[in-house]
């Protein structure tokens, strides 16, 4: 199925966005987030951006104080996922203008809308920033 979950976590390990594409109970989510965050945050910049965890891989990328983590199946193209993270960040950047952690917190639903346009059921749907942002900007105009 490709992408299993998308997580934003700050340096303190607090979740800032979580979207799962497979069902996990709240307890499982908490446990998983804790384990992964501990693993990823401990790594240095020189180490590669992939961590194997349980039966899947976590591809992560760090932007300032935020970690963007994407859990994927084992046969997924890790480099492409890195590119996807970057695309996501660029998209947010275009919308919010110099996006920061607070933007994401206060506009959580908008970030979710963007993600929804980009990924559906674990598959990448749209990679054009313009197409991704079109419905969101349309909504802002009308309201």
């Amino acid at each position, binding site marked *: *199925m490709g992408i299993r979950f998308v997580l934003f976590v700050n340096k303190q390990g607090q*979740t*800032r*966005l*979580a*979207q799962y*594409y497979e*069902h996990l109970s*709240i307890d499982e*989510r*908490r446990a998983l*987030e804790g384990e992964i965050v501990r693993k990823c945050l401990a*790594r240095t910049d*020189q*180490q*590669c*951006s*992939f*961590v*194997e965890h349980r039966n899947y891989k976590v591809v992560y990328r760090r932007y300032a104080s935020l970690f963007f983590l994407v859990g994927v199946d084992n046969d997924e*193209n*890790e*480099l*492409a996922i*890195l*590119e*996807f993270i*970057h*695309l996501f960040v660029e998209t947010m950047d275009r919308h919010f203008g110099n996006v920061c952690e607070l933007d994401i*917190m*206060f*506009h*959580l*639903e908008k970030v*979710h*809308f963007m993600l*929804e346009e980009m990924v*559906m*059921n674990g*598959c*990448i*749907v*749209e*990679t*054009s*920033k*313009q*197409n991704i942002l079109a*419905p969101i900007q*349309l*909504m*802002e105009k*009308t*309201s």
Partner: protein
Amino acid sequence: MSPFSSGTRLRDMIRAIRACKTAAEERAVVRRECAEIRSAISENEQELRHRNMAKLMFIHMLGYPTHFGQMECLKLIAAAGFPEKRIGYLGLMLLLDERQEVLMLVTNSLKQDLNHSNQFIVGLALCALGNICSAEMARDLSPEVERLMRSREANTKKKAALCSIRIVRKVPDLAENFMGPASSLLKEKHHGILISAVQLCTELCKASKDALEYMRKNCIEGLVRILRDVSNSSYAPEYDIAGISDPFLHIRVLKLMRVLGQGDADCSEYMNDILAQVATRTESKKNAANAILYECVQTIMGIEATSGLRVLAINILGRFLSNRDNNIRYVALNMLMRAIIVDTQAVQRHRTTILECVKDADASIRKRALELVFLLVNDTNVKPLTKELVDYLYVADPDFKEDLTAKISSIVEKFSQEKLWYLDQMFKVLSLAGNHVKDDVWHALVVVISNASELQGFSVRSLYKALKAFVDQGSLVRVAVWCIGEYGEVLVNNVGMLQAEEPITVTESDAVDAVELALNRYSADVTTRAMSLVALLKLSSRFPSTSERIKQIVSQNKQNIVLELQQRSIEFSSIIQRHQSIRPSLLERMPALDEASYLVKRASITQATIAADKPALAVTLGGLKLPNGVAKPATSPLADLLDLSTDDAPAITTASTNTAPSDFLQDLLGIGGINSSTTGASSSASTDILIDLLSIGSSPSQNGLPAAAFSLPAQETKPVSTVPQVGHVVPEVMDLLGSLSSSTPVSGTKSAPAIPQDMDILDGVPSNTSVSGPDNIGHSSITAFQSATLKINFDFKKQPGKPQETTIHATFTNLTSISYTDFVFQAAVPKFIQLRLDPASSSIAPANGNGSVTQGLNVTNNQHGQKPLAMRIRMSYKVNGEDRLEQGQVSNFPPGL
């Protein structure tokens, strides 16, 4: 305030949560907010719905329960306006999942929205459906989705295509409906539609073979065209990433090509050119380009590519592997794992680089590289590779040592051509990472040492030296102590020196020192200490001069708080003090352990199910431990003792002339008698005894049921008393144990009248079931299984005071007119239940129900009272030489078991 913006109150909440210093404060804030949202929901406040939903999403993200908001989502979805629907669907996707009943209620709203005239609302519904639909919803709504794939709007098309992926995954039967529409979408120009359609095609190919064939016929041209267009296209700013046009589409197409080309030469040939073009023309400077190359190489490795193309791919791999970027190296290792199946030689060329990667600072890379090395090992390169890996053990960090030792041990076990080399490598591993070695690995090592009589000297000396240097490595200490105990005199006298060995001088007291150190070391666990005690006992007979000192060391442990050690010490002291005459023969060297049966045992341990055709398994350790009140936990040393006196005439004469046998001897003989009946019943107890020996005192839980042990006066009061009987039974027993072979059946009646009860004990029935009828709580019997050919009845017995345990007496009746041979019954139970199968009465079930096979089952329900018993059963047998198999589930156990 607009209905869409989430309002200031959301901000307030987030600020409040961020201001929390402790988790408790945060919980309090969240609790307060939740309470407000609940009351808003119950008062049905329209204006706050939207904001409350946004808050709930935030709370959900923090990991708090938000189920009370689920109905609110449904209400928002049912609302007319877009903003309400928008947040409602988002809430639906985040807060609900397909397993919840509430979801069924949303089907109708979804259907309406799918038919809505506004494309954005249709898009929302498709997105929600694609993320969370269940199988029923998929069936209900698939016609709508199919129709929407032909819509005019690009947005709707792409979402409908992705939604179909979910539908096909949930209900694979629907795949054929989507084959046509999916392949026609490949003719589109819009990248969003293309990427969705390609993914849908991939999913369809996985779901049905027909679809795969269909795609091979109809889509391959389209795919090649897409790939050519996208890689040749001029600059397209919207899809451009670092100068590459839409790498995501590239990758998805390449992935689908891999699926189509796998095992299909025609398809593969059709793709060759375009793959070569992608592989050569993509410049590998940027990450996006490398992602494409990576996918391209995987596809080339996956399909029936020409050799030229393969060479191209391997070259790209080589380039990746020498890249300095860790990400690239990681994926290169990943790809080599695939490549090794296609072209081992090409991968072997990179061996040195891969070995370097095993030592990388990055755990992810190390792990990949280690797995790859494991695949690379063959007979010719095993020695240098193992040396590299063993050398690396010196510096590897502790987390990694476990993986590394496991891999090294399995490499040396698998490829060892000579025992000396195997032993040498294993000793190194034990010395460097003894604390990370799994039990079965060092058990195997002990078996090998005991068989290699010419290398025992080398082993014990190497281990002695290693023990001096690496006293903290748990499994090294165990193996070393065992070897010193067994081969102490070889160590001291430098027997069997190999040419390359340096002679060492070890005095008798040095050897004792070493073992004493292991015994008293603070870090030693019970197993190590117990093994040390046995070794000391053995040394006391090997080196008579140290006997007095050993006696003292052993008696220091008489007050040990660990029962196991205390008991051993007491017993061993009494052997040293009071039984000088039989000691040397008791403590003789162990006979070579049977490698073949150990391997069988090791394999069967890894299998979770208890196979009924190995009756040896059913005779568990408990059986050996029950009969005597005195020595019950210390079975293993006793088994040791028995084992050691194999074929030992003096031992028997002392035993039989000793008219008033001491406690210890009684124990010895008592156990012997029981063993004879065990082996009589089950013909190959050897593997168990072997394990007994190896896992000396391994788990306290096995140390038996004291109550049962003491409730056996028959055993205690009827010692095997007359000399001729003793003389008759003992040698055979010893023979059985010693040779570890299947036995000549010993007629149990000769040894003592108590034998039937002993059999009970061995079967794990805690007390004299055959005699004490009234004690048993009766349960009605059930028909556990019935087919046209076979009927199985279960009768139940329970012991008073042990509600968890149930003894089941199973009766198998053949209902056909042909008798069954090789009848084997197997059963599996959930984790909370423990099951033990006794040997079946026969492996032949006579025809027409003329007699039947019976078998005992012991079940312990660890969740007695909470969960009922349940069992899956399987019967295999042969009818006229043909294999038959029947299976079923037993769920009609009477309540209260």
